[in-house]
């Protein structure tokens, strides 16, 4: 038994080395000086929108039916090859809070789990009919959470079956080169290998934009600003 374990350990070390020797070093593994693509996305004023229908049948004023539509997702399209290497299965989180989804826009990488905790005192029923990942979590109470795994890249519209003004976007990427803009509209894409890329900006309310950006061999920061119309 001891001999078998020792053989197994030795083979476990040698096998990958033998495979690398046979196939050659993958291009992705070559060392490079990483760069950061950073910049700012300007979104037209008035992108905080009413999300709910006129609630004519209600007896009270809805205080939660506006949504901030300024958030943008900036990403490389296509992405450098190392970005597609399989990794762990990260968990992301989309809260149901004050009758809204927080965050309203959530980019994740394929294989991620997204937890949907209910932080409100009322029921919510999170669902999506998107082709990328249809799901329906049913109604569950405050303090409880359910999770969904996203296995395909694409855009997933998320809604609440009870509160029609609640909606969100989950953008599932096949790589890790993406970023959400902050309150000031700034973004940064780190650890980008040298090369020429298409940097794309997605926003739910405005047409997407693309720009060619070249990351030099020496790395450093590359600026790319966008103005959405």
């Amino acid at each position, binding site marked *: 038994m001891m001999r078998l374990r020792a053989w197994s350990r030795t083979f476990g070390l040698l096998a990958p080395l033998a495979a690398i020797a046979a196939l050659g070093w993958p291009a992705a593994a070559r060392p490079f000086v990483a760069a950061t693509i950073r910049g700012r996305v300007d979104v037209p004023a008035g992108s905080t929108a009413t999300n*709910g229908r*006129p*609630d004519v049948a209600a*007896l*009270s004023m809805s205080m939660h039916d506006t949504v901030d539509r300024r958030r943008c997702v900036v990403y490389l399209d296509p992405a450098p090859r190392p970005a597609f290497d399989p990794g762990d299965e990260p968990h992301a989180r989309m809260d149901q809070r004050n009758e809204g989804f927080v965050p309203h826009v959530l980019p994740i990488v394929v294989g991620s789990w997204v937890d949907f905790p209910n932080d409100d005192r009322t*029921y919510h029923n999170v669902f999506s009919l998107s082709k990328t990942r249809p799901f*329906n979590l049913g109604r569950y109470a405050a303090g409880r959470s359910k999770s969904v795994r996203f296995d395909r890249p694409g855009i997933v519209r998320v809604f609440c079956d009870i509160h029609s003004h609640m909606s969100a976007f989950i953008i599932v990427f096949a790589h890790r080169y993406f970023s959400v803009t902050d309150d000031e509209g700034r973004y940064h894409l780190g650890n980008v290998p040298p090369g020429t890329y298409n940097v794309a900006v997605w926003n739910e309310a405005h047409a997407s934009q693309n720009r060619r950006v070249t990351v030099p061999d020496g790395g450093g920061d590359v600026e790319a600003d966008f103005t959405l119309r």
Partner: protein
Amino acid sequence: MRLDRLVPLVILAALGAPGRAAAQVLPERPLTLANGQVSVSGEVTASIGPRSDPGFFDYTDYEHNALRMLRLSLSGRWRPSARLAVLAEVRTENLERPTPYALFVRVRPWKAKAFDIQAGRIPAVFGTFSRHAYGADNALIGYPLAYQYLTSLRADAIPRTADDLLIMRGRGWHDTFPLGSIAATTGQPVISAYRWDTGVEARVEKGPIEAAAALTTGTLSNPRVGDDNAGRQLSARVAWRPFVGAIVGVSAAHGEWLAGNIKNRLSMALQDRSYPQTAYGLDAEYSRGYFLARGEVIASRWTLPPLDAPQIDAPLSAMASYVEARYRLTPRFFVSGRADHLGFSDLTGHLSNNLPTPWDYPVSRVEAGGGIYLQRNLVMRAVVQRNWRDGGRVREATFVSGQVSYWF
């Protein structure tokens, strides 16, 4: 274009959508103007059902069939501040003249307090169904009997004797009485879900308790824009949420229901009396996971003047109850069902051989069906509805109906 051609066209147009459904091809957000202060939304509900309903089981107080109707509505909200909004809805049924269904102002005096006031043509506070009768919110296509079935009672024409009423049993779709309006027209439901009343209401929420009260011009059976009897209806509902997913509510309403032109024709002694509709309701909702169930019990009583023998010397009562449930099988598919009954108190007349007999024929209904969400705001459903009535020209009827509902 004739309605019976238009409704299938709307359904066929929707059938073309499934392949594109995931892409959310139709708009799903309200139109917004003035930096979000103004929002406009619309709804199209096309129901295709039986070409004829000789028993008039599904006729509404607009004299349309609830299972065979094209309804277009446009809702708008102008919200100049966080605590003030003006809301309106205009709708047309079967492409007839559009009517204002709702028009009211909503005020929240204190931003931090869940206290709201609404004035104008306002949603009913009594019960629950009136506030989710829209195509998308209705679990089925038909309405509960309490909110739709036309009893033989009318506010603008009344029977002089018990026999005048007994002979009109099962004729709520088209009845006449000797006192008041001589035109033959529809009777009234226990509660009208097709019209809203005019007045002022307030709603407050504190913890698990929600309370709302309204002072309006008409009554539950006969909501009105203009006053016709110098009377007011006071209605209220108190709801309790014992735990998340459960709601229990009790409602009450009391208001003058008889039209002023009838009261003016009564003797002085009878004119001094009050002729109210008084109603009590109990509603409950429970939901968990993919399951939702609702039910209501409504007891209503109408007081009529005692005129000629055999007299109607006691208030006429009706008791309605229904329970409905919906289950989401998958993100897109759901099934739903409703069991429903409407009964009436006894009345004695020569036509009943001086034996107590219900003043209108009791009705029962079972409706079941299913549907599919083609996209989040585009639903297709189909139902089978079975009706039973204890008398009348048609005692039993089964209908099949399909519906497409789209809203933005």
